[in-house]
């Protein structure tokens, strides 16, 4: 019953987010600020993670291809598929649930604790729209981050594969282009769009409805990370069944 109550409140929150819009000029500034905080601020860690994930995938694939009959270009093929289908959209999103999610929960939670949300409400402002809507719009640019992660991940695989002596550059580039299905990119970006919405709204929910003081802000951040990750993993399974089966 407790979880049903939370799910119900989450959808009521979404209704509140899209009603009584804040003044356009104010929203525009907020959206740019959120893009800076949530997206630009995440580029560094995303690039770092994607490069090394791609590199490790290439090395693991190479080390497991012990049969000499299997062509080495398969290293590039497997790395590309792994990075595009799962590692860039899902793995990076789980990391972002920690980085972006805890930032959103703690910033909104602190506003709740310090009565800043009450101050917005007293002024007659729809605090849900003011606080959450710009985050949702800012997170619509998240697929660009994932596109960069895909590119960097494959680049990492190339560096590790070629300079690690596992595969020649020619074989890698041949394998990279082999049996490429553009729909896989569509699938990856559909997932990413859903994740971006979840990354903006679930941590906002935990921050907005938190009660208590500084300790509870920390607990809400942890809880937001756990639930965002759980929902991402479950929706990954459902979307994969729906879109690829």
């Amino acid at each position, binding site marked *: 019953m407790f979880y049903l109550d939370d799910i119900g409140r989450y959808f009521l929150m979404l209704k509140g987010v899209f009603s009584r819009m804040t003044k356009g000029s104010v929203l525009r500034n907020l959206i740019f600020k959120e893009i800076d905080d949530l997206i630009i601020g995440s580029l560094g860690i995303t690039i770092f993670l994607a490069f090394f994930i791609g590199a490790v995938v290439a090395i693991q694939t190479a080390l497991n291809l012990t049969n000499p009959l299997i062509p080495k270009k398969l290293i590039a093929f497997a790395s590309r598929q792994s990075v595009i289908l799962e590692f860039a959209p899902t793995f990076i999103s789980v990391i972002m649930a920690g980085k972006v999610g805890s930032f959103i929960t703690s910033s909104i939670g602190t506003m709740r604790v310090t009565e800043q949300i009450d101050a917005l409400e*007293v002024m007659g402002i729809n605090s849900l729209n003011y606080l959450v809507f710009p985050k949702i719009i800012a997170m619509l640019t998240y697929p660009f981050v994932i596109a960069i992660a895909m590119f960097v991940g494959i680049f990492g695989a190339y560096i590790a594969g070629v300079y690690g002596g596992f595969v020649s550059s020619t074989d890698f580039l041949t394998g990279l282009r082999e049996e490429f299905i553009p729909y896989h990119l569509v699938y990856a970006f559909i997932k990413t769009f859903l994740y971006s919405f979840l990354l903006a709204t679930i941590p906002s929910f935990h921050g907005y409805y938190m009660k208590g003081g500084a300790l509870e802000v920390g607990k809400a951040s942890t809880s937001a990370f756990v639930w965002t990750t759980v929902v991402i993993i479950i929706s990954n399974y459902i979307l994969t069944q729906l879109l690829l089966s």
Partner: protein
Amino acid sequence: MIEVTDLHKGFNGEEILKGITTTFERGKTNLIIGTSGSGKTVFLKCLLGLFTPEKGSICYDGTTYSDLNTQQQRDLREQMGMVFQGSALFDSMTVEENVMFPLMMFTKQKKEEMLERVHQVLKRVNLENAEKKLPSEISGGMQKRVAIARAIVTRPKYLFCDEPNSGLDPRTAIVIDNLIKEITEEYDIITVINTHDMNSVMEIGEKIIFLRYGHLEWEGDKTQIFKTDNEAVTDFVYSSNLFKKVRNAQLKGL
């Protein structure tokens, strides 16, 4: 005038406000006093429309809040200013941006006009040189003054203050109290202050209501409160050692 009639509010089955009936007049500083847990903050949040009462009504200059639709309630709230206990300043904004915020949200003024009004209000609260500072870079007393400036920048009809001088030294607390009183008279607004500071009562208590366990126990003004024979009020008023000594001295005719 704000007229409160038979106001009831509870949480999780526990009744916090038990039928409060009172009035707050324009141009006066109205104080709500009482011990912690007496329902002061809940009462103030009901007046602000942040809590919906279960029973009873609040009437603002002839308009009953519960009879209004959401848009009308929002319009009415735009006529209210609030000074929160912890100031509730937006910590990512400078002092100037904090004070300009209500103007940006609700007016179509040009930026120059807004800035002119902001500087006018900041001058009124003696904060002319702190415009570009962040709330974390100024003292508690200054934060309270910024909160007052933000509350009055849109020229509200009603000003609500939740323990405006809590956490301040006695001298700064008096400055804040006097500032609120001056602004109330100057702008001819209805000011309701939630406090348990007896210095505030002595300084600015033009009308005082005393809450106890969610009931309105007593109401009067700052001269009457020291003469009342209501035991609960007397206990509250003379709970500090200073006031006890003053009272004992009065009784001994010193």
